[in-house]
């Protein structure tokens, strides 16, 4: 067995044992980290492989989350009932947009299709016009800002800044009960595994190579007979769908979905995990997302006021000293291990 296999098995075992070892509160937090890890897989694909630094992944996370939340809210309100926030927002009749979300099949389809479709359309518009690099990053950031403002402005429809909260049931599971929480955790862990596999297959396929080629030489790829806009749009869509699925699970896991989770800062925080873990390696991105979010919980519990120093500082340190993230460090350690004894030339600095 290779190192990669061994650590993969170890991770699976650890995740499987977690429900036995952790309190429901801690297990809930872990499930939350796993949601972010699912987003991280998508980001590693789009950014690490495809060079698309998406600062607006919160948007897709949100679309999935709201689709799920709408269903759960309607489920809770019962037939003819109105979600609680509509009552206090003065809405008297269920808005037309909400009606189909009473149907679980529609809602589940929307979790996948809405983020996917939005990403697809946006990607097509933007990538066909050859917007890339920093421009794409900033545009996606503006998208996140605009999306949040839109959500907040439609209080009657979306719950405004509050978003939606107070969910107690999830497809028959009782979310207030530790067993229900364990079940939701298990679903999240399984979904993460599935997304990891999907991404892995994609990366290894010809399409994955093509994606790297697009990242490194988009214009050159055109002269190999491919449309880079299609390659990028497909990848962007896949990563958006992953974010949407994660958002949908976030709702039962954490019990709230609100614009505060989707704006620029949360979107950036999603990236932090990926950057710290190593954006070029899927497993690194997952590990990074879990580690960074765990660190956030830990630090903000123990040094509430110093959290920003730690978060910011950690981030700077990783970027400066391990630009390829933890995965890069692991990789070079392994390299050093295997080349011990042999004389390696000293690296040379290119000064300018």
């Amino acid at each position, binding site marked *: 067995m290779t190192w990669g296999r061994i650590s993969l098995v170890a991770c699976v075992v650890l995740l499987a044992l977690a429900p036995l070892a952790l309190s429901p509160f801690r297990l809930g937090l872990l499930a939350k980290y796993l949601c972010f890890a699912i987003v991280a897989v998508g980001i590693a694909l789009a950014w690490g492989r495809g060079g698309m630094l998406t600062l607006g992944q919160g948007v897709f996370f949100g679309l999935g989350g709201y689709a799920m939340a709408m269903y759960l809210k309607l489920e809770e309100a019962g037939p003819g009932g109105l979600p609680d926030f509509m009552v206090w927002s003065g809405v008297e009749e269920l808005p037309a947009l909400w009606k189909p979300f009473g149907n679980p099949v529609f809602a589940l389809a929307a979790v996948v299709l809405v983020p996917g479709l939005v990403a697809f359309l946006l990607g097509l518009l933007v990538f066909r016009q050859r917007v890339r690099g920093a421009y794409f990053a900033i545009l996606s950031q503006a998208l996140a800002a605009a999306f949040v403002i839109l959500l907040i402005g439609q209080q009657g429809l979306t719950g405004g800044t509050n978003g939606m909260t107070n969910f107690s049931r999830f497809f028959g599971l009782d979310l207030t009960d530790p067993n229900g929480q364990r079940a939701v955790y298990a679903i999240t862990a399984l979904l993460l595994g599935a997304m990891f596999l999907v991404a892995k297959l994609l990366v290894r396929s*010809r399409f994955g190579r*093509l994606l790297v080629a697009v990242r490194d*030489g988009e214009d050159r790829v*055109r*002269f*190999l*007979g491919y449309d880079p806009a299609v390659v990028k749009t497909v990848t962007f869509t896949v990563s958006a769908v992953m974010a949407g699925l994660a958002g949908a699970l976030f709702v039962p896991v954490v019990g709230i979905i609100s614009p505060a989770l989707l704006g620029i800062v949360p979107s950036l925080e999603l990236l932090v995990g990926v950057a710290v873990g190593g954006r070029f390696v899927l497993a690194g991105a997952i590990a990074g997302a879990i580690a960074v979010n765990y660190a956030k919980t830990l630090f903000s519990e123990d040094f509430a006021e110093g959290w920003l120093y730690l978060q910011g500082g950690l981030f700077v340190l990783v970027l400066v000293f391990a630009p390829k993230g933890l995965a890069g460090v692991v990789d070079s350690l392994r390299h050093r291990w295997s080349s011990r004894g042999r004389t390696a030339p000293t690296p040379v600095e290119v000064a300018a």
Partner: protein
Amino acid sequence: MTALLEVRGLRVVFDGFAAIDGLDLTVEEGELRFLIGPNGAGKTTLIDVVTGLTRPAAGSVRFGGQELVGRREHRIVRMGVGRTFQTATVFEELTVVENLDLADSFRLPLRSLLRRRRGVSDAVASALETAELTALADKPAGVLSHGQRQWLEIGMLLVQRPKLLLLDEPVAGMSRSERERTGELLHRIASTHTVVVVEHDMEFLRKYARKVTVLHQGHVLREGSVTEVQEDPRVREVYLGRAKGKAVT
């Protein structure tokens, strides 16, 4: 023989400056055509227009009877037009084989692209051999030297199997022996494909060219055999230089 590439009344303007101005050019099927001309004559621009990188202000480019102007780059490639670049551009992080494989796979439907590559196709294998890169097949292209990169690029063009190959200074910066190898390869390819080569190396030209077109200030100055072109006083004046036209042998 029928015309494969027909350029008519082409005009390309950048910021008021006409880089190509009233250019007409016909390349027959199966031809090996050399394109020469002073720096800035519009040779690269012409290739850019044919391959969709640059949009002309006026004129038409027909390939096998179909208009190319207005089509996107990858569509033109899919119609069978391939090119290399003045400075070789390969994907440094991908291995040599992967570079070639990508050039080979563009005809696959998206569905099969999503599968993993298994083994190496015949076209890729033979391109590896032609470019003498078999030993380096699994090395990332980033480690290749200048010359090897140019070879890889030519290899990628070959596996693309285009009907028309446009080569922009393929031997620039190559050592003498590599020039020879490239020349021989060109000859072999030209027996089955239509090839247009841009070159400044007169030695190379004399050795391998049959028909030569001389561009100057965006239009055709002269067309003919190597000797005809070389003796033309106008070509000497703007391109070859007074003294050296035939001094170098």
